[in-house]
């Protein structure tokens, strides 16, 4: 990547430039809406109303947000180690298996609060295991983690279809899905909490795994920025040569970071499997693993940024569903387009606007700064 033309203040680097990138992504999305002959403003209005305008909308927004926090964190943790985990989708899928196995075993015997911790372990372990294999292959055998995680997404998909169709679906069922869990395998919903604020969440499936997601954010923050292992992960991601100099094992860092990344992706499954459907369905991940990439890029791999970006995408998903309802020409695929544009502008083209911003910045600020931004002059 090209070196920055000039040093810019911190708030420009971590605030303004990412914001401009995302803004451009949305602007282009607006053009797409215009192109198909609808009014972007009207679309935004419906979208916002659908996402935040009423209790149930908010409930759904929070439900999707929960998914994206998990998958966004998963991608972010790997980013910190300099790894690109495209396998969140498959890891979440496998995580669903772990969660469902725990629920199927326990739902009829114990209350949810006993099942929940075990389901968390199941989801995290299965997801982590699915990420660990590509990590090990990269660390020990030198295979490219991007390619292997892509392949593992497909393998996960085949594996899960096979399990659901041939082994997990109850006899006589026409759907490839497990039986519906009993109360011991269902997470409490946030409805009562909404009630405290006088809002009605309706049938929205937001549930307490949202708190698990927020807790995961805190844990990831503490882990990455406050522990020795987190320190080693960041050092390796930012400067692998310096990490080797410092005696940090890159093998260990790769394995640990991917293990955690997979565990986080796996935990995403708790929300739809135990929280919403109370059963394990085919394809329940619905691309959330990929949304995680956009969320992590947009949130700059920081838990706080991930929460904000996840909420934005949660709004897009819920609002987008309403939009598809009210403006049938704008199908829900619009969200995928926005997601793509965010990844493109905030990821692949992240430096495109920097020179321009640096120049504009130089013009607007004091002469002293101007010199700095124009590149040091010859003495």
């Amino acid at each position: 990547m090209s070196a920055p033309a000039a040093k810019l203040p911190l708030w420009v680097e971590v605030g303004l430039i990412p914001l401009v990138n995302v803004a451009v992504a949305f602007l282009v999305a607006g053009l797409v809406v215009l192109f198909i002959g609808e009014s972007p403003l009207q679309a935004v209005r419906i979208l916002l109303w659908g996402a935040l305008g009423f209790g149930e909308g908010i409930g759904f927004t929070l439900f999707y947000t929960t998914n994206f926090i998990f998958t966004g964190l998963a991608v972010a943790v790997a980013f910190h180690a300099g790894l690109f985990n495209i396998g969140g989708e498959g890891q979440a899928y496998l995580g669903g298996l772990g969660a469902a196995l725990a629920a199927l075993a326990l739902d009829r015997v114990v209350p949810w609060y006993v099942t929940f911790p075990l389901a968390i372990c199941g989801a995290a372990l299965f997801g982590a295991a699915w990420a660990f294999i590509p990590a090990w292959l990269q660390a020990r055998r030198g295979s490219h983690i991007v390619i292997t995680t892509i392949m593992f997404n497909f393998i996960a998909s085949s594996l899960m279809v096979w399990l659901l169709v041939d082994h997990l679906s109850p006899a006589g069922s026409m759907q490839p899905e497990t039986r519906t869990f009993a109360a011991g395998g269902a997470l409490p919903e946030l409805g009562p909490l909404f009630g405290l604020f006088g809002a009605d969440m309706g049938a929205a499936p937001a549930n307490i795994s949202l708190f698990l997601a927020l807790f995961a954010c805190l844990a990831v923050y503490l882990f990455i920025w406050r522990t020795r292992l987190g320190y080693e992960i960041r050092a390796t991601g930012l400067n692998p040569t310096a990490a080797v100099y410092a005696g940090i094992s890159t093998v260990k860092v790769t394995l640990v970071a991917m293990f955690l990344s997979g565990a986080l992706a796996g935990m995403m499954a708790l929300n739809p499997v135990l929280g919403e459907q109370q059963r394990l369905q085919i394809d329940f991940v619905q691309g959330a693993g990929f949304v995680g990439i956009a969320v992590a890029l947009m949130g700059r791999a920081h838990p706080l940024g991930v929460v904000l970006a996840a909420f934005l995408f949660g709004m897009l998903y819920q609002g987008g569903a309403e939009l598809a309802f009210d403006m049938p020409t704008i199908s829900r695929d619009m969200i995928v387009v926005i997601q793509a544009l965010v990844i493109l502008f905030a990821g692949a083209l992240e430096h495109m606007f920097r020179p321009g911003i640096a120049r504009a910045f130089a013009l607007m600020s004091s002469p002293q700064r101007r010199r700095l931004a124009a590149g040091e002059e010859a003495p």
Partner: protein
Amino acid sequence: MNDREPAAAATEPAGPPAIELIGIDKSFGAVRANRDIHLKVAEATIHGIVGENGAGKSTLMSILYGFYQADRGEIVVRGRKVAIASPDDAIAAGIGMVHQHFMLVDNFTVLENVILGAEGGALLREGVAMARAELTRLEREYELQVDPDAPVGELPVGLQQRVEILKALYRGADTLILDEPTGVLTPSEADHLFRILRQLKEQGKTVILITHKLREIMAVTDRVSVMRRGEIVGTLKTAETGPEELAELMVGRRVLLRVEKAEAAPGAPLLRVENLTLVDARGVKRLDDVSLTVRAGEIVGIAGVSGNGQSELLEVIAGIRPATSGAVFLADGSDLARSADPARRRQGGLAHVPEDRRRMGLVMAFEENESAILGYHDDPLYRSGAFLSREKVRADARDKIRRYDIRPPDCRLLTENFSGGNQQKIVLAREMERGPDVLLVGQPTRGVDIGAIEFIHRQLVAMRDAGKAILLVSVELDEIRALSDRILVMFAGRIVGERGPDAGEGELGLMMAGIEQAGAADGRSGPVVPGLALKGVPTR
């Protein structure tokens, strides 16, 4: 510059020079890599260019080859002014270049490499046939034997270099630039190269040869230009000069800065290195049977032109890369050479100030306080429970900032926002403050201003006086001389000699250039320290 040696005007040969550079200027940001360069290279001669690391030699040649654009100045080839905007133009003007790092495609055959960019048509068939014939001719004419169908990656370095030369000749180069061509060659390969160069000269080709090795200059060149700090400080006829004069021109007269230090009182050996050998991935010996001992209370300096194995020596001792054979012992007597585990060595009391702080010593995107514990992050000192205690890390950083006068005194600033000198102080504070028994120091003052140099030197001497063993690597000969109690000279991966601290600059310079047993012709004595602008470039 007012202390420049008057450039000895080389006598004009008949006819226009093969290459003439007029008033070339080139800056990289604040660094003026070339300033007002005037250079004439006569036709059918071998013209040497010497100068210290970072003097601007490669930059000048890259401008001539169109890889960089000069800020100012003209290039005249055979009396005709030419605009060289890209390597394409240079090739058209009959200029070829053999780069310091070969520009070869490893999994291509020799033939494919030679014709790349000069295929002679959209289809390869005719071009290949032509090239094969042409290679046979060149081979005969210049002793450039090499199997045209061998994959380049499998050839030894010497042969790869021949391919580079063949590439240039195949494109019809009349002038051939070689940038430090012998750095990677064995002596016999180098001798063969020089035979080829002489052959080229006899056939009327012009050769520009950049090297650090004065022996080579004396052996093959007709004329030699000396560069210092971006300028040409002299162009001489080789026959009328000698290594001593060249060495002096290269180094120039500088600000003298005396390092106050008492006589060393060496104690027990704390670091022992025995028969260390390192063969790199290409099969080149980077370290060749190196043995040395550093005792408590002494500074051992390693002098040498960069690229002669000093960096590798430090990295092997520090545990960053494993040795091919040999042993490294710390005071506790354990042999560490085969395993690469820097953390264990740190625990054993070995600290390491790496040569390249940006690439290796610091994490530029970390806050200062985070960079300041790199490698020591496992120390219980910084823990509180399972966590790395921010308070303790920052308190420690603030303490070091105060004692090393790191500016600005803000441990939350990102490492990349500190100036070069202050970045270096961050590394030094980290590595020295913990009282290691053995300290490895690479280029401690590279890119650092005079004030900081003085400070750093005082710290190193203080450590020595506290009974630590210090192994110092620097391309600044004066720094080595100012600080070391013993000086080892490295050349081509071997230690070629040991001298005391009062060894003459010229003598050391000759040893560094691969000329052993030179007569001691020393103008000055006493330790000197280089000035501000003498910044080296990492040669990697």
